[in-house]
């Protein structure tokens, strides 16, 4: 009961803020909504007892990436509205309609899946040591998986970040 209430509340807020993000006229407002959206998503993660991911979501997304967006929005002080010019060939509305159709289809799948209720409950992936029984151990377990089984992807991700950092510097510098 409580769980359902929390979920529906969060879901409504998340979706509503998502719609606000894409519909806000001002980019700064979009960013604001996006931050709040991310924080709500983090709370959703907490309800799923994924504290580490939730904190990371706040720390990196809300505290890092979106700040970057905010900077850019502030730096790009536009002399004319960015949406002033529209190409005649763009398929925006068609795309939105088609996307809605996809959503309907997916929800259809979900509903039919719920009706069948043959979801693979309890099916566990291979190679994972134990269940997430104790929320207090979440971080430790993720660290364990990340630094043993997924060590190489982890290092690759770090390289990706390094490359992205260098790339961003190169792009942003006026003259190196």
């Amino acid at each position, binding site marked *: 009961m409580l769980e359902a209430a929390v979920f529906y509340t969060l879901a409504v807020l998340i979706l509503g803020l998502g719609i606000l993000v894409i519909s806000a006229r001002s980019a*700064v407002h979009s960013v604001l909504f996006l931050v709040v959206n991310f924080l709500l998503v983090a709370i959703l993660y907490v309800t799923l007892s994924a504290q580490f991911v939730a904190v990371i979501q706040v720390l990196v997304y809300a505290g890092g990436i979106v700040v970057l967006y905010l900077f850019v929005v502030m730096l790009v002080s536009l002399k004319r509205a960015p949406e002033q010019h529209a190409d005649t060939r763009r398929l925006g509305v068609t795309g939105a309609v088609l996307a809605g159709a996809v959503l309907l289809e997916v929800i259809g799948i979900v509903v039919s899946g719920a009706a069948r209720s043959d979801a693979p409950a309890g099916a566990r992936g291979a190679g994972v040591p134990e269940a997430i029984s104790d929320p207090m151990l979440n971080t430790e377990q993720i660290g364990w998986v990340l630094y043993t089984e997924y060590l190489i992807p982890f290092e690759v991700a770090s390289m990706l970040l390094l490359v992205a950092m260098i790339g961003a510097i190169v792009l942003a510098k006026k003259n190196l």
Partner: protein
Amino acid sequence: MLETFIIPLLQIAVLLNAVLVAVTFMVLMERKVMAWAQARLGPMRVGPHGILQAIVDPIKLILKEDITPVAADKWVFTVAPIMSLVPALVVFSVVPFGPDPLYYVADINVGLLFIVAVTSIGVYGIILGGWSSNSKYPLLASLRASAQLISYEIAVTMTLVSVILTSGTLSLVGIVEAQREAGVWFGFIQPVAFVLVFIGGLAETNRVPFDLPEAETELTGGFHTEYSGMRFALFFLAEYANIIVISAIVAIMFLGGWMRPFPNVEALAFLDLIPPWIWLIGKIFLFLYVFIWIRATLPRYRYDQLMRLGWKVLIPIAIGNLVITGIVKVLV
């Protein structure tokens, strides 16, 4: 019901009130200490030795007219102070004032990370406040502030990782307990980290000598130049709350939190007569005093010096400290 709702709500209420009162008194304390440092008396009119000044100031701010500039983005202008204050207060939910669950709202396994994450949200308030004012000095100040915040956050977080390595847990309660087990405060095991976190805390809270976002001589009032009344008060609160948070974190991580000095020495057992929350508050006040002391002592950095210190000194030292800690951890 009692344990899940009533007690936490009570705790939150007490904590919020305590923090807000502490902030008001800290303003008074700052004024008094600065005055003494400059051989003045400070506020003397309201109450004995001006003690009631702490109550008068908030009342003044609440009663003042709340001005919104015409060119401002009103909505954001309103939200910005809230976004600044809320994270600062939220952080207190994980600060333990004693070993018993009664002394803290929550002890989560990612406590330290939580603090770092939530404080990083605080930057929005500053940026949005400066931007939404639609005025050049606040905008410049907010850019400065956010750049400074992000830069020093890296150094501080990296340093905190070395402390986490030492304690082996992210939980703040766990960190304190680790210091009990170690028999010594981490401030002695990690002196470099101690100093780094403190300096980083100075910068993150825009305190002297890193108070460039609020440099009156350059930017009149900083990012909240256009603010007044209650909204200004919120910014003000947030700033001082942040100072208290930093002090609390440093006290917990490096000075043993709620524990008395030398917790393993039986001869000092009489010190346990003083309750743990008093120990922690005492340590926090010690740091607050140091904050004010530094403000009274040191001149302001130049902006490029500030950035150079952050990126070329603190971050390398933090990384070096982390590496050495890791090596020692592996070897010992």
